[in-house]
């Protein structure tokens, strides 16, 4: 007799341990492949995990096996159609061939090894040793805090937590159940008694009625005393239990210049920066809100789709975006509850005189209330990081801020592949830890 077992509900991911061992072994290669994938991918796919290829060098499993070449061999093949014994068939490509279909052994295979990473694995590797700068109001390492939340009622507690309504409800039920006389009942009897006693000429029947009423009233009063209006067992308190709630709420403002001076390439680079930022934040923190503000000569708050893919052209007034950001922050994200992060991408162009306005806005209204402000400037194609060929108006203006405000950072990006290193530099774990207050 056979034994039938349903294994389908067994714990999953039996291979997880081996998979992790494999990833650990190939960590460096996988990381290189992931970085490359991010630099090359289209925006929508950037964080989606998926297939990566790594060279087979580190993961070969060599074994002794016979070479595919040289020597004398005899094969048997099926499907002969025209050959007779003694026929000679020219080898394809001269020497060595003959066994073209033999296939290569797994060990000697030099093709890159491709496999799929899950989204979580992909992002983990992508954001390895990368962290947002210190959250000043709360350490994000311990994201959640305990808070007391209402959770029904309890029989004991402190007086300030007395639940009056609930107590009265319980008390009323008890009073009904134990037939506690109400005040109205006694009052009615007392009124009748008073009426009888007030009669000038009491009749005999009245006498006995008076005695009866007195006894009744006495009995009811006694009963009223013995069944209290509020008994200790009626008392209920509001109950509070400690609940985990996210303590640090963060809002990330993404500001981008989409004016005519930002070409396709510039936009694309800026978009990539935000993509990374977006991915990073939504991965790292549970409570992070992101506000997208794009601007030309006027700024607008838009949704993510609009922000990345919408079409809008016009002049360039950077301060309009900063103003829009201030408005949004003041109306929706009070500084007491929210940590504010801001990332700005621009090509450095700005209308004359506006840069100074920006600096003023930043220094007075934004930076004091912002945990971190990152500005990236999309440089010309040939430019290198840091001392670019052309010092833009905005860059020069902002450069002054860098000294005064430790929570302000700026960097330049020229090529797609620059984005990620710059991103890393901006948010590098060690570098900023000391400088943020």
């Amino acid at each position, binding site marked *: 007799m056979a034994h039938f077992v349903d294994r389908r509900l067994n714990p999953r991911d039996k291979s997880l341990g081996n998979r992790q061992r494999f990833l650990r072994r190939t960590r460096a290669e996988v990381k290189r492949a992931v970085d490359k994938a991010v630099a090359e991918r289209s925006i929508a796919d950037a964080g989606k995990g998926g297939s990566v290829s790594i060279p087979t060098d580190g993961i070969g499993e060599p074994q002794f096996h016979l070479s*595919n070449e040289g020597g004398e061999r005899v094969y048997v093949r099926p499907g002969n159609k025209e050959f007779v014994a003694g026929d000679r068939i020219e080898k394809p490509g001269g020497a060595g061939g*003959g066994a073209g279909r033999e296939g290569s052994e797994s060990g000697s295979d030099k093709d890159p090894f491709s496999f799929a990473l899950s989204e979580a694995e992909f992002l983990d590797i992508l954001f390895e040793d990368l962290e947002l700068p210190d959250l000043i109001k709360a350490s994000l390492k311990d994201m959640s805090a305990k808070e007391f939340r209402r959770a029904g009622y309890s029989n004991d507690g402190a007086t300030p937590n007395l639940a009056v309504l609930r107590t009265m409800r319980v008390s009323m039920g008890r009073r009904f159940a134990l037939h506690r006389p109400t005040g109205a009942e006694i009052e009615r009897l007392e009124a009748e008694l008073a009426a009888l006693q007030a009669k000038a000429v009491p009749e005999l029947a009245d006498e006995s009625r008076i005695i009866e009423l007195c006894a009744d009233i006495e009995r009811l009063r006694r009963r009223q005393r013995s069944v209290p209006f509020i008994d200790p067992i009626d008392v209920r308190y509001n109950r509070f239990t400690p609940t985990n709630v996210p303590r640090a709420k963060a809002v990330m403002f993404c500001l981008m210049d989409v004016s005519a001076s930002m070409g396709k390439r510039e936009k694309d680079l800026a978009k990539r920066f935000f993509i990374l930022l977006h991915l990073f934040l939504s991965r790292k923190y549970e409570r992070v809100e992101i506000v997208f503000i794009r601007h030309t000569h006027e700024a607008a708050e838009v949704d993510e789709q609009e922000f990345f893919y919408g079409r809008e052209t016009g002049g360039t007034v950077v301060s309009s975006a900063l103003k829009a950001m201030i408005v949004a922050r003041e109306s929706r994200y009070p500084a007491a509850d929210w940590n504010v992060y801001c990332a700005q991408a621009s090509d450095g162009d700005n209308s004359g005189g506006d840069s100074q306005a920006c600096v003023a806005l930043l220094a007075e209204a934004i930076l004091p209330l912002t945990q971190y402000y990152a500005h990236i400037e999309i440089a010309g194609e040939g430019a290198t990081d840091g001392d670019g060929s052309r010092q833009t108006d905005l860059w020069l203006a902002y450069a002054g801020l860098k000294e005064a405000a430790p929570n302000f950072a700026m960097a330049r990006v020229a090529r797609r592949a620059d984005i990620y290193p710059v991103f890393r530099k901006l948010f590098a774990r060690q570098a900023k830890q000391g400088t943020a207050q």
Partner: protein
Amino acid sequence: MTAKTLTSSAATTGGGLLFEGAEWDFETVRRVYEAIETIARDDLGLDVYPNQIEIISAEQMLDAYSSVGMPLMYAHWSYGKRFVRDEVLYRKGYQALAYEIVINSNPCISYCMEENTMAMQTVVIAHAAFGHNHFFKNNYLFQQWTDAGGILDYLDFAKRYVAGCEELHGVEAVESTLDAAHALMGQGVFRYPRAAKLKLAEYERRRREKLERETREYRDLWRTVPGAAAAPSSDLSEEEARERKRRLRLPEENLLYFLEKNSPTLRDWQRELLRIVRNLAQYFYPQQQTKLMNEGCATFVHYAIVNRLYDKDLISEGVLLEILHSHANVITQSDFDDKHYGGINPYALGFAMMQDIQRICVAPTDEDREWFPEIVGREDWCAVLRDVWANYRDESFVRQFLSPRLIRKFRLFALSNNASESSVRVEAIHDSEGYRRVRSALADSYDVSANEPNIQIVDVNLLGDRPLILRHTVRNGVRLAEADREATLRHIGRLWGGEVRLEETPIVRNA
């Protein structure tokens, strides 16, 4: 009990059919299993281990793939590599998953996919739980080399042992030892029986006892007693070399065994890891030698059983057609010039040969009388096949039973390829002069020992820089593949802890 089963099956299936439609449930599977068991036992005379049939999901099938088909396995990154590769192939649709996996264990575990239709479950049970199972239990190689009753316990031990080592000595250290051992898996088997092997469980018990005894009796003081040291250092004469080889039982072709016993650098736990890998290699060795027969046997059995089920009106014509459709896919053999050609399909050739033996028994031709006098006209073809399944391996099976008729049917032809010539010569085709040459060449190609390099440890010097000397005996001028040879030698060097040399010496070919 019987009456109850009968009424319930009658109620659910109406006209005697075991099932209708594609959906399966455990009740139906059990009913079908019983019907199959009756046929397998009474009509085919199969003798099987008790069956354990497990239904698994696609994901679990992938897991099983990556751990070489075993239900449990120690942890190693290479299994993770296999998993990620198979996963990609499966998800992209390059590779379908098998309908089943069957394990040579007692009880015999068969994994069936939940996606299978009821018709497919029927085939799978007949194929795996009876065909493969019978072969595992009765074939001499499996009887000689594997301990079906102990393998699962041993794997459990291996898994725990490796995990324990990782904890004690670190994942990396364990990994590098296992890497090296895996590299020698092909050279980690005994090809000829030695002293009766211990049952794996028995071995494990002894090992533990020995360890305990050593722990108990260990006295550090003995180390300080003078006298035993000062081994005689001397120049090694011929005599001593011979004596050394005799003592180390050289030459030795089981490299893992030799290193496990004699490597001067390995620690005890590393030797144990080598032994685990070696035992696994030995466990799988019969499977490499019987792929053709094993699949042929299982395919023949499922084909016979489903036809019998149909004859007994237990399955409908539609179900039979569905089964035959997938059966036909399995036994397709494409021609050598077809772009799908991937070697000789073991299912196709194995099944054809089993069927051919049945035909020779019951309806022989004059040709058969000449070629197979010993089985011609045997009424009990089942007994003939059972005898074949029990006593042959692929190589001897082909050499003995490949009939001219099949050579004609598959249009087999033999080619000889000499690296020094610019053309390939057609040696023999399916004609009366060619039958024996083709058959013998094909049998050679199934000879595992001829297709794997013959590598032996021939000498060793335990003193000085202790070089280990390996010899590859080159047959027909075919040398080792270069890149892997070097990498594997490095692994051996790691296990040996010293220099390792490999010489490739041709043998004189006697024509």
